[in-house]
């Protein structure tokens, strides 16, 4: 079979991947630079009997997909900064009710309306901490179309596996850059199906009682099991409880099911790491610039390496620590004032060797930007 090659934007890669992962339902509200995702799905979803709805705002879009997910659908929404802020309350509801869903946030320049059409990576910490209350979350990213595809499929898979919202944290540059996408064949990538309970009708089903392997099989709303779902702290039946023991169990479960599976959730890519003196750590579009620099300097014999993170949350502390151990110097390349930078500092044994190479003026980070900072780190001045 001939390869199915496309020339598409990152946003289109998201759409193709979501369709590949059996997306059934999308609700959204337009916002630059994520709008193409909605536009394409408005066209694509009905073709396979799926549902697309443009809601009145981002708050309702988020709520709508949660409702749809509970009926057994695979669901997604897509937005950018301001809309991501608006979705936070409902994202917390999805966390608390353990409802699978994928939220795409195509980052643009902030804060506030900021620079709507510029790339940025300013929402990394918000993806982790944007909703109120203690919780854990999964956030993934990618730097090129092929990876965007794979990571999007992964986002759905992890969302189903851990019954949790997964945030796909892209950025304007990745979303809007057109490049090749080789469409994976059906079956080529793993697609995790919704895990449904095997408890038969008439037998008690506990929506919030984890199995031995920690997973919680679901029962579709409208199916044979009638149960309650609430954003309040709740017991294994889904009914409100403020019994400290039950609350404690719930909180630990919600956090541990993610933090405790960091290894399984971690996706990274490594370039010339083994003997790297200067280890660059980057993600999303800025990893492209970082890789450009690494390849370029390797060609001149300089020992640069790149660790590209695709899982941002839970932060892969162990992997980062290990990979940084032998480098003389670590440089985090990102388009903000150091959000992953501080996580790396926290992770490594000798934080004073970690530096930040960044760009915050709305323009895309260039190889020169990185090299200039590298030179300074090397003590060579400006």
């Amino acid at each position, binding site marked *: 079979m001939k390869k199915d090659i*496309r020339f*598409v934007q990152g946003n*289109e890669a998201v*759409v*193709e991947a979501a369709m590949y992962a059996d997306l*059934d*339902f999308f*609700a959204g509200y337009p916002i630059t630079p994520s709008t193409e995702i909605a*536009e*394409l799905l*408005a*066209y*694509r979803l*009905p*073709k*396979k*009997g799926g*549902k697309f*709805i443009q*809601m*009145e*705002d981002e*708050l*309702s*879009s*988020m*709520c*709508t*997909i*949660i*409702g*749809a*997910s*509970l*009926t*057994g*659908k695979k*669901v997604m929404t897509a937005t950018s900064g301001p809309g991501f802020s608006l979705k936070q*309350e*409902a994202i917390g*509801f999805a966390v608390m009710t353990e409802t699978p869903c994928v939220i795409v946030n195509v980052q643009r320049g902030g804060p506030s309306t900021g620079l709507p059409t510029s790339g940025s990576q300013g929402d990394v910490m918000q993806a982790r901490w944007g909703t109120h209350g203690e919780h854990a979350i999964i956030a993934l990213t990618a730097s090129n179309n092929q990876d965007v595809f794979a990571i999007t499929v992964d986002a759905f898979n992890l969302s189903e596996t851990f019954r949790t919202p997964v945030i796909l944290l892209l950025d304007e540059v990745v979303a809007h850059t057109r490049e090749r996408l080789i469409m994976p064949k059906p079956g080529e990538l793993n697609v995790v199906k919704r895990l449904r309970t095997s408890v038969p009708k008439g037998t008690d089903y506990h929506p919030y009682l984890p199995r031995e392997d920690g997973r919680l099989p679901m029962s579709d*709303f*409208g*199916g*044979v099991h*009638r*149960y*309650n*779902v*609430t*954003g*309040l702290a709740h017991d294994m039946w889904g*009914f*409100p409880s403020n019994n400290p023991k039950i609350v404690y169990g719930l909180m630990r479960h919600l956090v541990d099911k993610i933090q405790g599976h960091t290894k399984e959730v971690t996706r990274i890519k490594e370039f010339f790491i083994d003997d790297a003196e200067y280890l660059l750590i980057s993600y999303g579009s800025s990893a492209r610039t970082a890789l450009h620099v690494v390849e370029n300097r390797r060609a001149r014999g300089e020992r640069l390496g790149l660790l590209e993170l695709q899982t941002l949350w839970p932060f892969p502390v162990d992997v980062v620590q290990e990979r940084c151990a032998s480098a003389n110097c670590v440089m985090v390349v990102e388009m903000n004032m150091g959000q992953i930078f501080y996580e790396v500092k926290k992770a490594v044994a000798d934080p004073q060797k970690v530096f930040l190479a960044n760009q915050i003026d709305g323009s895309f980070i260039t190889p020169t930007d990185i090299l200039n900072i590298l030179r300074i780190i090397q003590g060579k001045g400006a």
Partner: protein
Amino acid sequence: MAVKDYIRERFFPHIWCPGCGHGTIMGSMIRAIENLGIKKSDIVVISGIGCSSRICGYLDFHTLHTIHGRALAFATGVKLSRPELTVIVPMGDGDAFAIGGNHLIHSARRNIDVTAIIMNNNIYGMTGGQYSPSTRYGDLATTAPYGNIDQPFDFVKLALGAGASFVARTTTYHATSMIKILEKAITHKGFSVVDVLSQCPTYFGRKNKFASPVDMLKYYKSQTTPIGSEAKEKNPDLIERGIFAQEERPEYCVEYDKIIEKASQRKVTNGKV
């Protein structure tokens, strides 16, 4: 089946205060459903946050207790995914028309087949008696210590203005007709809004000189009148109850099916529209 077959008995007596109208509305809902003979597993009840919203815990349907004001958005997701289910959304007046007002008018506009029941006690019960968008001018509330200066919405007018195809009003005093109205609202193919006046003796009543729940029901009895009654002509201050609109209009999920049909006939052309 008996009323008890529709509830989760282990949580009774329920949490609502003595004489709270919300319980009466729950009873009427159950009776309407019983009369219609809808299977329990075909019903999804979705609520937001408020005293009213605690209804979810008590009903033996698929129940989804969501966040404040957004119940209809969740309902849109459930209904559009599974149009064959009966989706009922009981809401507080604050839940439905303060923080949730936008979702209500947009649900009405789309005419999605969901039944919104407003458990309208003219106050925020759950948070302890602040004024709501249906608190009348001059009424007292904890955040209106000098008397409320906000004009209230007329929920019926607003729902009509937004394009709702079924709009009705009733009260907890008029339990028999409430049941009838709810039956019609639930069977109506399209978005239905039923504004049910419901007493909150604890906060609204106490602040506004109603000595007891009984007094509040007396108020509903004496101060409301069927739509277009003579009494209304004589006393225009009377609140009308009954069905204000019941129209057949294109329903959203049905319309969506047409989209699916159209779409499946067209060929995908390189992902371009």
